[in-house]
């Protein structure tokens, strides 16, 4: 190659490579903004709230005296509401996802349904709250109860579960389905014996991410009328005497973690703000541990499967 042509080529490469540098720099700045904001939030909340974290904080009911106030009714309420949400959203969402992916004919009608499910994921949560207030609280007569709240949040995360299920199912190679059909399996046999087990990692990840979103939802829960101050627990689900299980808790009034936080932050005393920060730390820990669980499950289940 001629010396001058070679020089030109090198200049060209150098100019093009400048963009690599520029983008890398911009990317680091953007990432830094996101990471720093999150870290600052957590540290700030930890400084305010950490001193309040003690065993008493978890076992005390809310109180007018900030030093004695705790989150017992809130975390119990959150746990129970999440149980209802999981119990409703998982079977319904997974079944709907499986139906759409494996059974539904591919026509205009299913295409419209699919688009609408994706759209539902973007509906503001307060709209779900209004819907639930009319439907669960009044029309079905469930009242301002754990059941109503759990079902509302289940509706809210249903699109997430359906989309996650469909994506997990779609990642199974068609060769595996053909293998099952080729030995004489029916559609249900193929779904139950192969499609569902092999897509379990993706489905569970979607469910847990949906739950992690639901656990922090405040607006729809306020809309259906959760209490902001509650100094008693719902009836225990497990009883000492026959029949050992009780479902009375489903209809009990309740509060949840984000509402307890909201209540404390709206008070004038600074000590309550510290309580809110401490409750925020607990809620953040709950969410992060759910996400960690999702990552762990995905890792464990995917170890066995290599396509």
């Amino acid at each position, binding site marked *: 190659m001629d010396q001058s042509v070679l020089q030109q080529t090198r200049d060209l490469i150098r100019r093009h490579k400048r963009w690599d540098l520029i983008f890398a720099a911009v990317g680091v700045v953007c990432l830094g903004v996101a990471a720093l904001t999150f870290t600052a939030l957590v540290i700030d909340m930890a400084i305010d709230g950490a001193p309040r974290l003690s065993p008493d904080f978890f076992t005390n009911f809310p109180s007018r005296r900030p030093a004695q106030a705790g989150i017992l009714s809130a975390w119990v309420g959150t746990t129970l509401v999440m149980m209802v949400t999981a119990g409703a959203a998982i079977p319904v969402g997974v079944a709907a996802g499986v139906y759409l992916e494996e059974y539904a004919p591919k026509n205009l009608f299913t295409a419209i349904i699919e688009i609408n499910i994706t759209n539902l994921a973007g509906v503001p949560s307060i709209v779900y709250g209004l819907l639930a207030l009319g439907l669960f609280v009044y029309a079905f007569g469930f009242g301002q109860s754990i059941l109503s709240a759990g079902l509302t949040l289940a509706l809210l995360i249903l699109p997430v579960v359906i989309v996650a299920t469909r994506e997990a199912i779609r990642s199974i190679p068609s060769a595996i389905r053909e293998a099952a059909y080729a*030995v004489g399996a029916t559609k249900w046999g193929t779904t139950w014996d192969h499609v569902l087990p092999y897509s379990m990692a993706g489905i569970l990840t979607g469910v847990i991410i949906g739950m992690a979103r639901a656990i922090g939802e405040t607006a729809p829960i306020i809309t259906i009328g959760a209490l902001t101050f509650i100094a008693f627990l719902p009836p225990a689900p497990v009883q000492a005497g026959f029949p050992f299980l009780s479902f009375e808790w489903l209809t009990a009034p309740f509060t949840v973690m984000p509402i307890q936080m909201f209540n404390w932050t709206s008070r004038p005393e600074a000590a309550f703000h510290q309580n809110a920060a401490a409750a925020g730390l607990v809620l953040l820990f709950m969410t992060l541990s759910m996400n960690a669980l999702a990552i762990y499950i995905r890792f464990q289940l995917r170890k066995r499967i*290599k396509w």
Partner: protein
Amino acid sequence: MSKVTDGPLNTSLLSVKAETKNLSFHYGAFQALKGVNMPLYERKVTALIGPSGCGKSTYLRCFNRMHDLYPGNRYDGEIRLYPDNTNLLHAQVDPIEVRMRISMVFQKPNPFPKSIYENVAYGLRVRGERKASIVDEKVEQALRGAALWDEVKHRLKDLAFNLSGGQQQRLCIARALATEPEILLFDEPTSALDPIATASIEELIADLKGKLTILIVTHNMQQAARVSDYTAYMYLGELIEFDATDTIFIKPKNKATEDYITGRFG
């Protein structure tokens, strides 16, 4: 006294296990098979050769109604399965029933992400076999039939993915054999394998043909020459020539077949 002509196609001594009668097939508007008439002789290996896109895999996949899994496909004509003379393509014949009689081995090994044992046992479980002793026995029989037993007998609980590519393909053959099919379909079974694994699969096919009828699609003419008794040459969805493998490879009747075999085309 007339001499009995012992031609290459002395069908009087052979029984026909299945035959396609005027079989046509459409993927939507595209016609992939055009009126194919061809027999499969019992306990013989029939090979399908032809250039890519000639319809040989499409033809093979008609035999276990695999095309039913996808919308927009249409069969015309008949596939007769003997001795019961069932038309496999008849609307009232359930494709699941067809697949219970005719097994298939795919192009790429496609074991389930389960144990070696469960892979072979799956066909039996689908047929409702619950007795562990019977399943054990048939799994062993199938793995022996696929020349895999000695390599895996101590690790039946291992994941199938831990096997090599050739072993995985033999596992898929064992899975297909476990249900004692009448016909075994092979869709380019060695195209994803190395030469040594290919040789072991070819040996296996030679062993199996005494027991059941085999239809194999291959893009490798030498393979067709090595393993098959009969060969069909297909081109653009049509059957150009069908004859004993020796005849096809030594003195084909059709000029197009000869051009393909000798490498002038394809």
